[in-house]
């Protein structure tokens, strides 16, 4: 199976640990991934202002690029890219007037009517590859590791584009179980990470960080997995601002644990880009070789 892939900007810069580990995992599972030859920023956020069509240009252009590449489906990894592209795609499918306006503005592009399907990587794992196949391919099951999902907002809301139930999702729990780890739910799994409050109101943002980390600790989890570079920043990197007792709670991109469990080359996981505690936890549990200390 060939997979047409849209990376997004952050995965090419600050979140290489997300992309590299996901691509290494797909290679380990025997899938061929083709990155779109031409692509631009997805727009980063779906504009909620109904007449703000200008901000739909970026995601729609990405979808046109996918269509030009002959892709029936385009897969994304970043929750935010997924959300923005999927919602712009819905708009192009369902709102004839806005579709016409956008197509007429982009006279240099072929018309687009929402023909491409936008798929998140987790949907690909669940619906096309299947948990059983992943389980069968495990080289290093994550036995004994208590992992909690952190969905954040963009994977689940609004429900029209959510990859699972917005109130009782199971996709990441099933994923964690498929890796041989112990899936552990916790109270804040579907809450907001604080999003861009980190810039506008850092204290309010840190409240979210604290809430999520404390709720996870209360459930006795070893680590969180997530699918969004902004969540990773707010819940992972921002922990250094909290000075929480008991040290840092390790946060991983889900694809990093997938790559470890599938026995992919460790370089692909780029743990150096994770916040403190991530690499150390896996070393401690004997899941990766201890790195040479400087």
């Amino acid at each position, binding site marked *: 199976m060939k997979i047409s892939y849209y990376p997004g900007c952050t995965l*090419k*810069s600050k979140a290489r640990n997300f992309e590299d580990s996901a691509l290494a995992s797909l290679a380990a599972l025997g899938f061929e991934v083709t990155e779109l030859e031409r*692509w631009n*920023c997805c*727009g980063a956020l779906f504009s909620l202002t109904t007449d703000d069509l200008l901000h739909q240009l970026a995601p729609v252009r990405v979808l046109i690029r996918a269509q030009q590449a002959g892709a029936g489906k385009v897969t994304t990894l970043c929750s935010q890219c997924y959300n923005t592209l999927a919602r712009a795609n819905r708009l192009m499918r369902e709102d004839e007037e806005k579709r016409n306006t956008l197509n007429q503005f982009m006279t*240099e592009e072929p018309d687009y009517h929402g023909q491409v399907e936008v798929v998140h990587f987790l949907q690909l794992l669940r619906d096309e590859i299947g948990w059983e196949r992943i389980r069968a391919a495990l080289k290093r099951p994550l036995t004994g590791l208590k992992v909690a999902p952190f969905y954040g907002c963009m994977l689940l809301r609004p429900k029209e584009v959510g990859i699972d139930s917005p109130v009782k999702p199971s996709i990441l729990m099933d994923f964690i179980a498929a890796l041989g780890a112990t899936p552990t739910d916790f109270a804040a799994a579907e809450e907001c990470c604080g999003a861009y409050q980190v810039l506008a109101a850092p204290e309010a943002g840190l409240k979210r960080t604290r809430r999520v980390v404390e709720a996870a600790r209360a459930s006795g989890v070893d680590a969180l997995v997530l699918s969004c570079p902004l969540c990773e920043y707010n819940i992972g990197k921002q922990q250094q601002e909290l000075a929480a007792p008991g040290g840092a709670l390790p946060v991983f991109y889900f694809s990093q644990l997938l790559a470890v469990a599938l026995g992919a080359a460790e370089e692909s996981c780029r743990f150096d880009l994770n916040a403190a505690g991530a690499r150390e936890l896996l070393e401690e549990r004997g899941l990766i070789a201890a790195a040479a200390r400087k």
Partner: protein
Amino acid sequence: MTTVKTGIAAELIPIYIMGKRYLVPEALTIMKAIEYAGYQFIRGCGCRGGVCGACSTVFRREGDYKIYSGLACQTVVEPNMHLAQIPFYPALRRPYDYAAAVADGAIVAQLYPEVFRCVACNACTKICPMDVQVMDYIGALKRGDLALAASISFDCIQCGLCASRCMAEIPQYHVAQLARRLYGGKLAPRAEHLAAMVGRISSGAYRALLGELKTMSAKQLREVYTGRQMEPAMTDESWRPDENVGL
């Protein structure tokens, strides 16, 4: 369309320079036509060969709302075209310390944060007289890919029309130049054969040969020059001269 027969072979056609109608010989370039109409270029005119980017023109065709662009020295006048020269665009070019600069995406974000205001409207690409995919290299810079931005923007002539159309007020051409300079000086693989050649020259390996040339008469030099073995018109990269004493 008004055409007027003249003594010269060309017919006169009407064009509108900054809104005023002039009759100019067809088949002139815009630059020649403007001069024919009586204007004199003090600035906004450089190489007259389509390379330097000094003579950007924006124009419209009769009855068409679209704005087109071209270099005045390269674009031929059309009947009833409405045009104006854009000799300069006051986009900000931020100074930086090249020697200390680290060649990655962070420097773009630091020097030109406005790059992240791009909404992918593509007006920059549509106006580019060199058909550079401007929006695509801005996209590459947003994800920190200097090599890709350098490659896409390679044909840029720094005319500034992209910036003139940008609703995000991005000085695309200056950012692209930054990318090319960082890529060229700090990321692109070094040309090892060049360094080796410079080494051979400075070691004096060619001193005797050059000395020999210096003693030759003009006639002898001409003979050596015209008698040298030439590369055939149709050949591939594997071709080598029989003798290569100079290299």
